[in-house]
């Protein structure tokens, strides 16, 4: 991911997209096996001590969860959510912390007097705006938004996406947008990563992915989107595999209409088929 970029991570339920977001922040359950590296500005996050990691979380990388209804503590005033977070990272006076909290809230279009209210006194869209304000109050350089609009109504969803884009520019932030909604990806992302059954199957610019998808799964996913110009329905045969015993070779092969014997035997590597456009398919060049 580049600085200032919006990368969309798409996939269906259980493909590992939320786990990916949590792994970056190091908030997976204890004893989860995490292998490989997570390089953030050259530093491998997997090697950090707990103490160091806590400095990164919120301050450099922030996360917005899917369900704003359950992510705010119902017994805490909005103000205390902010104060807790600011004091955890910076030694500033309560007065200054409060001022910054108020500024963050006002920048989200919520009146500053409401900082003393409790979460239940806000609507869903407002709570998600508060979540965003909380994520941004420490001015992180990377924001991970995990299905930030899924539980919201369609019009409020569009409002929140507008806000996220404006903020991204105002704060020079990078945005990792995790979603199952390809329409949203087409509207806001610069690049797209497609996950299937825990594997990255395709990565490229938003135009590459939408206009020239190389992986049969990406193709299937795109054609199954129902939009206003849909003339006939498409779907992918079968259902996503059980990840306790994933299929051998390419994990998509049992559902793939192009599958050959090699797909069962050999795991396809991620190959750069054209500049910046990667796919993990033995026959990716067929679709170039």
């Amino acid at each position, binding site marked *: 991911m580049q600085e200032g970029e919006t990368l969309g991570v798409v996939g*269906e339920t259980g493909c590992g997209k939320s786990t990916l977001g949590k792994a970056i922040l190091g908030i997976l359950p204890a004893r989860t096996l995490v292998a490989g590296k997570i390089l953030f500005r050259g530093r491998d996050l997997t090697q950090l001590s707990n103490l160091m990691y806590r400095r990164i979380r919120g301050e450099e990388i922030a996360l917005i969860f899917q369900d704003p209804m359950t992510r705010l503590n119902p017994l805490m005033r909005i103000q205390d959510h902010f104060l807790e977070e600011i004091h955890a990272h910076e030694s500033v006076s309560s007065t200054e912390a409060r001022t910054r909290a108020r500024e963050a809230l*006002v920048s989200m279009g919520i009146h500053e007097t409401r900082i003393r209210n409790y979460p239940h006194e806000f609507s869903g869209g407002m709570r998600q705006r508060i979540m965003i304000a909380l994520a941004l109050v420490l001015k992180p350089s990377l924001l991970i938004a995990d299905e930030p609009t899924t539980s919201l109504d*369609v*019009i409020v969803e569009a409002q929140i996406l507008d806000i996220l884009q404006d903020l991204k520019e105002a704060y020079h932030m990078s945005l990792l947008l995790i979603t*199952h*909604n390809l329409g949203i990806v087409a509207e806001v992302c610069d690049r797209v990563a497609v996950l299937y059954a825990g594997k990255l199957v395709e990565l490229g610019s938003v135009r590459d992915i*939408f*206009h020239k998808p190389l992986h049969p799964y990406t193709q299937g996913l795109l054609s199954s989107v129902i939009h206003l110009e849909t003339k006939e329905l498409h*779907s992918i045969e079968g259902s996503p595999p059980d990840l306790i015993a994933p299929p051998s070779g390419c994990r998509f092969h049992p559902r793939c209409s192009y599958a050959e014997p090699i797909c069962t035997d050999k795991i396809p590597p991620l190959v750069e088929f054209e500049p910046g456009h990667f796919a993990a398919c033995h026959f990716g060049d067929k679709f170039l």
Partner: protein
Amino acid sequence: MTGLGNRAQPASNDEMLRLEDLKVHFPVKMPFVQRLLQREETVVHAVDGVSFGIRAGEILGLVGESGCGKSTVGRACVRLVKPTAGRIFFDGQDITELGGGKLRALRRRIQIIFQDPHASLNPAMTIGKAIGHPLRIHSSVFGPQKTGSEAFGEWIRQKVLTAMKEVGLTPEEQLYDKYPGDLSGGQKQRVVMARALILEPNLLVVDEGVSMLDMSVRAKVLELMLDLKRRHGLTYLFITHDLATAKFMCDQIAIMYLGRIVEIGPASEIYADPKHPYTKALLQVIPIPDPDRRSKKVLPRGEVPDAVHPPAGCRFHPRCPAVLSSCGWEGRDFVDFLDEHLSDPKRVGDDESVLGPIEDWRAKGLVARLESDPLKVGKAVERVKAVLTEAPVSLAEAVETISSQNRTVIVRFRSPDQLLQTKVQGRTVECLLYQ
């Protein structure tokens, strides 16, 4: 579809279902003392005067955002909730007050499918047993054999296997003894469909039936619904928040907002040329899966308001991009505007000291008032006038008087024009723009 819109019209014969001015109000739970002090009862106006008909063999899409009352309409049709007022006709028969055995007989003909297939299935019941369960409940009508006999059990088993094959749950013999936990989301929704269909109903209410499913399996379930409709001559009430899916599925579309139908008519007409500003907004926010066609959208402001106190006049007026001064502006709209004004650091100036704090404003009906300092009242009236120049024109124009009385500043709005259903190009719209 014959009679359109919210107004009651006589039922015609080929209609499978007709709602006439249906109202469903839910009481708000309140502490005892508060209930005593309150003069009028507080209710959620979940459905507030909805009329429409569905002809046999048609699919009517009921579309709206969460909290608009669309699910309550669906539940009322199956008589899962009791209507507060209005009538429900099914196949010409008034079913509004039906009870006991007659209601049970009705349920054989109207079935409902809910959003979450996982929550709709008993985790401790095998698939086969779940699908056959309705047959056991209605055994007096369906069972040719004696209930509990071996032959009856075998008869049910055969019916279940046939139904499973029909909804694509194959190999049916193997799946028969599986539990819901062993199945994927798409398969579970098929189980729910088989269970709904086994009684051979005429009308199926589908409440967000595919919203929980992944894109790649959603299409399959929708196709199955269309296929079953063709084969069994089913009629659907298809409830969804997704206008794109509704476009594909439905013959007729009804757009619902805060308990009212704002636009209803043939799907082809409404999608080609939406009339109500709310319909336009809903259509506009559907993302186009093409990065080359990104566009800046004009979004309605704010969110769906509380259905306990729905806005006066047209319920969409506080959010409407095309709002007129006669649409229903009232006291609380002014307070909301002032709140927004006072929280904007660029515009607020010293307005807060004269007009604030916002908590001191009281809105009731068409009036907003501020108990102010007697010395400041005059200044406050002037300041309200100044602030209104920055308000949306339609709001400012709707203000009738700004006056003071002792120490109270009073902002009074004009009464809104009466909203009527209007026929516009093949559909019915409830909007002043077309009256």
